[in-house]
């Protein structure tokens, strides 16, 4: 029986906010992949992934982040993660993902981080 998973994509202050909920593994990773792909296809390269309701992530799920991060960064955007629960954060940190991605506490912080970067570029 597959584990429940769902995602939502909304626009927040000019950025794409993908809200993940449930179990991200090999079965459900394709959904997530399709969501990011569609954002990229619509030329929205600034993506925040809200993981506050994400309970579990497997290597397949981690792979999805890796698939797109270089592309969005080349295009001037980024994928930032926020709201990671302890277990998921632990998984990310063992792998050293905190050195690849910005792992923030909540959505406003992530939005702020995008803003800071923009400001830095502007200056």
């Amino acid at each position, binding site marked *: 029986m597959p584990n429940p998973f769902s995602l939502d994509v909304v626009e927040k202050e000019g950025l794409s906010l993908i809200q993940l909920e449930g179990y991200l593994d*090999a079965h459900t990773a394709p959904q997530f992949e399709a969501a990011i792909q569609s954002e990229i296809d619509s030329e929205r390269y600034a993506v925040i992934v809200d993981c506050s309701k994400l309970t579990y992530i497997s*290597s*397949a799920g*981690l*792979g999805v982040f*890796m*698939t797109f991060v*270089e592309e969005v960064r080349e295009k001037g955007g980024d994928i930032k993660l926020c709201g990671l629960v302890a277990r998921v954060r632990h998984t990310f940190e*063992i*792998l*050293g*993902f905190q*050195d*690849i991605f910005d792992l923030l506490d909540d959505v406003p912080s992530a939005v702020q981080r995008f803003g800071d970067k923009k400001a830095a570029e502007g200056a």
Partner: protein
Amino acid sequence: MSSRRLYILIFIAVAGYPLLAWMFHSIHPVAKFGLDLDRRSVIGLARKRATAIDSDAATWPAGVESSIDQTVARYLDDRPNPEISKLLSFSSMRVEMPDPRTDKSLDITISGHGRITHVRRGGFKPDAARLLSIDEQKALAEAGLKQLAPDEWQRFTFNQSSLTDSTTRNFSWQMIFPGEGRVKLLADASVQNDIVTRTSINPEFASEYRTALRERRSWLRWIDFGFVLLLFLGTLFALILYFRNIIRKEVRHRSTLLVWFVTFAATGIWLINSSFFENIHTNVAFYPALQRFYIGHLLSVLVVSLLALGMSLPFFFFWGAGYPEASRLVRNPLSPFELFLKGKLVSRKVGASVLIGLTLGWVSPVIVYATARLIRFGQPPGLFIESTFADLFMARVLLLARPLDSSVDKLYTTFLLFAFVLPFLLNRFRKSSISHAVVILVGALAFLGSDEFVTGVAAATVSSITTVVLLDLLIFRASFLAGMTALLAADFAVKLCALTNQPSLTLQWYGWFGWILFGFAIAGSAAVALRGKVLSEEDARARWFSEDQLVNREELALLKAQFQVARRAQQQMLPEAPPAVPGVEIAAVCLPAREVGGDLFDFLSLPNGSVGVVVADVSGKGVPASLYMTLTKGLLASIAETTSDPAEIVREVNRHLYIACKRKMFVTLLLGVVDPEMRTFTYARAGHNPPVWRNGTNGETRFLGARGIGLGLTSGELFDRTLELEKIALGAGDLLILYSDGISEAMNDAREEYGETRLKSVAARADGMSASKVKDLILGDVQLFLGRTPPQDDQTLVVVKVL
């Protein structure tokens, strides 16, 4: 089949068939209007008369065509005049005797009672020299007719004479019965000069009476039309589906062709044994021009073969279209029939189906007769004698005679609906009751007209619905083979009843002989059902797969074998034994979750003489992971020849893996170098689970978590920047546990993870144990935690104990 069920079935048969025989005897018209003659006596009688006319006729071949006059039959049921009844017979046998050498032929028709009713001469040349007067001709005619009805002749009165063409004059007499306006007897003779070419005595029915009789069953004509339409549309639909299935490679050609062959052979046998063939045969085979090279005989067989081929063609399409559908059902009702076709006649499954069919065949005709009697209680049950009964009585090989028309209709309908349409519907409608209801409705309509015996819409409807419902139950509870056997058994049983009820002793004898054969058939199938061959696994499973899929199972077996080889290869790639490092004990194990896995451990002989211990884990499982694992191992082995710096080795491996993995996969790795002289452990951790270090000196247990990103995720710069090298000092009794997440994330039924905390506590308990013991302790603890849940990920463990 259990012997208890078997005895029940046999008991049912022993009770049911006599019931059928009794009902047949009391209700069926064929039982009442008996046949005094069998084929041989008919031919003998005809030949005697023919020889009296022309002595050559003794050598001429003879063919019998029998028919049933429905109007006479209906009259005899409709308050007939007793005097006329004795003279009328609904059945007549026409014996054709052609002279193979000349154009001459003699046609003699004999009634069911054994009276000659027609004599026709063909090809006889009148004497041109002597011209007879009309009166002389009339005398000849009268003499001829007197021979046909010697006792009754004085009651005939002359009617008229007329010229039918320039050479033939027709004379007719008639016998009228006082008080009976519906029918009279007509005596006819045609004379050509001095040859009486034709004499006949026929009943002639008043036209109003004939029309009235015809109207009684006019509604059936629509049903007949409907049945033909159904058959045509069904065949068309099956044809389309058959070709679609060919494209999809779902057709089992062999069994489809076998179905065609079997139905062709059966139809051929029945047709050759019928009066239809007789008719062609005598008209074609003995035609003088065709006689010379047996062309005539060949032609008649060819005609029948073509007809049989055409009649059996629909079965070909029904099966070709229906079998793929049926094999998709949970229980394939067609499989015993297929086994039967494949020749597995003595298997239990086939025997059981045949037995069920044979023992339950009587049910359908009993229902028909019962409804005919009960619903029209007080009236005669309706007198329609199927014309194919005539074929039965005059067949050359009696017991192989053609099935009754009603049986043929039922066979076609059953095949179309149950071997094709129903499986097709069941695969498309979620509620199977809809499919069954549709098929039963259509089947009942088709069956409605097939029992010509039953008059009255009410009786016909009840019996047809009941019959189809029972057939549906039989086919889906037992099998399609059981259903077809039941239909054939019903036909055979009814024909046997017809035979035993005739006055002719020969026919009766054949009837009883048939019953004995029937009994043997039941006994034989019972024996096979109990003691026959049990199906081999291949046959039992064959119904689930088409021929293509059976081949794929072989491929699957091949794949499995290859997996075994790969697993062995992978096991062999792991170090056989840990290296001997002075002052240190090492124990290591790797248990893949599937045939091949994505974990590895290795020991590297570094250029400076130290030993590197590696544990690595590829994201994912199975074959893809194992491929990357092999690549990683190769990279480590070659890079470790060039440098002893763990960080440098790891950085190099990352550069290569980044290109190979294309970021979709990654490898976590821990490479630690044990320096026995300096008593240090220097390690680089590329995203891998932090090892457990139990300090033997102060009893502290901590995780070794230097920074480092997993391999294959980022290119050189970021990776190199982030990777940390940590060096720790080892003391006596220190324990290092390197592991993969197959251990730390092992999940049990309650969805709990084993966790690093438990691992830490096991390490704390392991003081004083050897590396090997510690390894076993940990594995055992994980196993205990998992309980009955099988491990979902590869489990790798390397234990380093400092002595």
